[in-house]
């Protein structure tokens, strides 16, 4: 689709993992080109070797990784055989990199401006004064608000999106021919992500850069890719133009990945009427106060402001919002993991806020929670059987009965009963999440609260866990409060959706209606920011019309 010559050619790249890893090669016979003025997206799930390719291209592989075979040609020279001295002239100058987590990728003790100026210094360019001047201009170019202040700021004084802009400014300082971006928007909120993607796209066009963009998110691919490489277990399973790969995927793995991306179209759901309320939340308020002392001013964050909603029996209510919107606080308030400043939570007929001590412990079995992090949500030192049966035993069930139930539950969530005597670390992320679901179901709750329950999972696993949840919910007649930042996931599983911003619910409506005609401007902004919302070709066309 392009006539220009590739600037980077990767041929049969083979990188060996240290012995004892789960497979021999991190990257196994990978070939692709980077072309000036084009964005190549390298897509794959975790462990596919996509990040390794990026590090190999930048010469930043750890020593433990063996460069087995193949070559990376940049302007004709093989980078795999370059000595460190030649690398110094190349890195930053001709090839630059943007990392996933801008907080840790910036030196916490150096001002942003100095870190950008270092780019020039590293290559012996400009005077210190000019460097600072350039840094300021760069910050302006990447659209950092108040660049004069930002240039003097330390990383912790900027927000996540601002830090990533600063990282991009740094990478672009010497106008490199190649930009490597390793999941640069994964750590960001969806609206910020949209802005950063647009920024990268704009800058790349303006400067005719070749971009290698690593991502796990097909939505992002649809938004910015010209060409796509799909990696699985270190091998390229498919590559081609973005339109071809997204619309006519050839390889079954690509097809499966694309099929697993939830649609933005909520399925038709029969409205739920004439049902009793399973949960009723009335006027919840919660303000976090930190600091405060003899001489220190208090810092107040209002996590929940007059939150009202109810969940009908058998209904799934979605709670969506960006990080810091207070959605997780609301989940924890409902669970009484934290105490509200004001307001009431009713579970069925019980005033869940008013009870305490033994009574609360007993009533807790009615409302159970599924957590976000499959690695942190299971006690690493307890066997799976205990993890599931502990709850019922605490509620007075005979241990033998509880263990038998745990065995049944494992079957119900699609795991083998021999999982009982194993420890959590022996399971994959998706399997652990299933164990977490089994634990929640062990107490036979009426309500499930799922806090970002599928966010940490790869997209294919995510789809399976979502199906499992949906299925269990229907089978057991549960009600669910589903907290997520991902509007696609919310569209698929929720009957109604509440949108949260800065501790408030700004809009609460049936899912279909919300996606069809969002009322609140923030909801509209959120929806517009979801990557890959429209098909990639039309998106690009409209952009080209503007440009």
């Amino acid at each position, binding site marked *: 689709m392009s006539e220009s010559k590739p600037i980077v050619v990767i041929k049969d790249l083979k990188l060996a993992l240290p012995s004892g890893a789960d497979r021999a090669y991190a990257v196994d016979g990978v070939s692709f080109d980077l072309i000036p003025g084009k964005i190549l997206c390298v897509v794959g799930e975790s462990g596919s070797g996509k990040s390794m390719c990026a590090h190999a291209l930048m010469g930043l592989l750890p020593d433990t990784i063996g460069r087995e075979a193949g070559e990376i040609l940049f302007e004709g020279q093989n980078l795999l055989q370059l000595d460190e001295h030649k690398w110094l002239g190349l890195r*930053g100058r001709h090839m630059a990199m943007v990392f996933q987590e801008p907080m840790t*990728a910036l*030196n916490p*003790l150096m001002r942003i401006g100095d870190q950008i100026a270092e780019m020039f*210094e590293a290559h012996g360019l400009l005077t210190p004064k000019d460097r600072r001047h350039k840094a300021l201009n760069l910050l302006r170019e990447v659209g950092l608000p108040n660049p004069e202040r930002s240039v003097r700021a330390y990383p*912790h004084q900027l927000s996540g999106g601002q830090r990533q802009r600063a990282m991009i400014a740094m990478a672009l300082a010497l106008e490199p021919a190649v930009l490597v971006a390793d999941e640069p928007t994964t750590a960001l909120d969806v609206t910020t992500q949209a802005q950063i993607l647009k920024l990268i796209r704009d800058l790349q066009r303006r400067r005719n850069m070749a971009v290698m963009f690593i991502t796990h998110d097909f939505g992002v691919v649809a938004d910015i890719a010209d060409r796509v490489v799909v990696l699985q277990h270190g091998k390229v399973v498919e590559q081609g133009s973005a339109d071809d790969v997204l619309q006519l995927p050839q390889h079954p793995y690509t097809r499966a990945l694309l099929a697993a991306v939830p649609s933005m179209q909520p399925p038709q759901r029969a409205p739920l009427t004439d049902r009793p309320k399973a949960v009723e939340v009335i006027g919840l308020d919660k303000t976090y106060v930190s600091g405060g002392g003899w*001489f220190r001013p208090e810092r107040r964050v209002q996590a929940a402001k007059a939150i009202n909603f109810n969940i009908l029996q058998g209904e799934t209510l979605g709670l969506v919002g960006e990080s810091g919107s207070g959605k997780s606080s609301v989940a924890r308030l409902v669970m009484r993991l934290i105490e509200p400043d004001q307001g009431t939570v009713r579970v069925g007929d019980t005033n869940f806020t008013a009870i305490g001590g033994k009574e609360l412990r007993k009533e807790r079995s009615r409302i159970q929670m599924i957590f976000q992090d499959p690695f942190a949500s299971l006690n690493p030192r307890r066997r799976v059987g205990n993890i599931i049966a502990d709850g019922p035993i605490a509620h007075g069930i005979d241990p033998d009965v509880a263990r038998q139930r745990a065995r049944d539950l494992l079957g119900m969530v699609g795991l083998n009963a021999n999982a009982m005597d194993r420890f959590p670390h022996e399971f994959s992320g998706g399997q652990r999440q299933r164990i977490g679901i089994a634990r929640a179901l062990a107490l036979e709750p009426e309500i499930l609260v799922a806090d970002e329950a599928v966010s940490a999972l790869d997209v294919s696993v995510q789809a399976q866990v979502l199906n499992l949840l949906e299925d269990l919910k229907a089978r057991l007649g549960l009600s669910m409060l589903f907290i997520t930042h991902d509007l696609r996931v919310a569209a698929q599983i929720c009957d109604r959706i509440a949108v949260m911003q800065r501790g408030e619910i700004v809009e609460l409506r049936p899912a279909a209606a919300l996606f069809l005609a969002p009322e609140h401007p923030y909801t509209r902004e959120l929806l517009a920011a979801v990557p890959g919302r429209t098909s990639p070709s039309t998106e690009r066309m409209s952009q080209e019309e503007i440009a």
Partner: protein
Amino acid sequence: MLAFIAQRIMKAIVVLLAIVVLNFFLIRLAPGDPAVVMAGEAGASDQLFVAQLREKFGLDQPLPVQLYRYVKGIATLDLGFSFRQQAPVSQLILERLPATLLLTGTAFAISLLSGVLFGILAARRAGTWADTAITILALIFYATPLFWVALMAILLFSVTMDWLPSFGYETVGANYTGFAHVLDVGAHLILPAMTIGLFFMATYTRMTRASMLEVKRLDFVKTARAKGLRDAVIQRRHVLRNALLPVVTLAGLQAGTLVGGAVLTETVFAWPGIGRLMYEALLQRDYNLLLGVFVVCSAMVLAFNLITDLIYRSVDPRIEFAA
């Protein structure tokens, strides 16, 4: 910033007050009736004298009143009276304080500088024989009892080789003046300062090395490499600066140990500081003096902690002086 310092000073004063109260009760816990003990210390023990002492020091008053008087006394730098040495405790301590400050100050400076240097060296050459040698030496010095290092130093440099004096603060009877005096004190200072210094050097070496290796793995070091910066610059500007932060914290926490080191070292080298004074008080069971030294040591440690805390806060931009 000022408000912050004020807050910290207030906190230190509260802690000091608590130490003083603890001290008061420790005196009361000391064996025997304080008045009888005092009389004994003064070398007299007839009933009348004991009664006089009791009245003079308010020991016939109820405990809270005594406590109040004691605290008030300390607020005016009155730490009580040493009957053994027939002098006010505060005066005895003040006489000895400069020598201790000289010794610990020198030892601290030497150990911090050389410890950080060796730590950097070891971390830069991680895995080589130089690293192994430094690590093993640091491990050994870290495990060696201070008083024994002191004795071995005397055995080696004083007894066997006769290079350096092993006793006291200056050559008795020499009456050097001017620069000769400085040299003389310096020569006397070397062994005790090295003794304390070795242990702390080992501590800082280990800490710096571990911290450098830890920071080396952080993302921003990768960013620095991606910029094309030379390794030396990366190490100095990105790794070292971040790695030194925990070392500063550690240095602050070490102040208390430094005092302990001074007690042992001054005892062995007969260095006329407050550590040696504490040992003398111990030998003579002079509890007033012992606890007086203890309070002063605690105050010094508090001051030192305060200073390192302020330094830490001015080096790390992430901690803001909330005011």
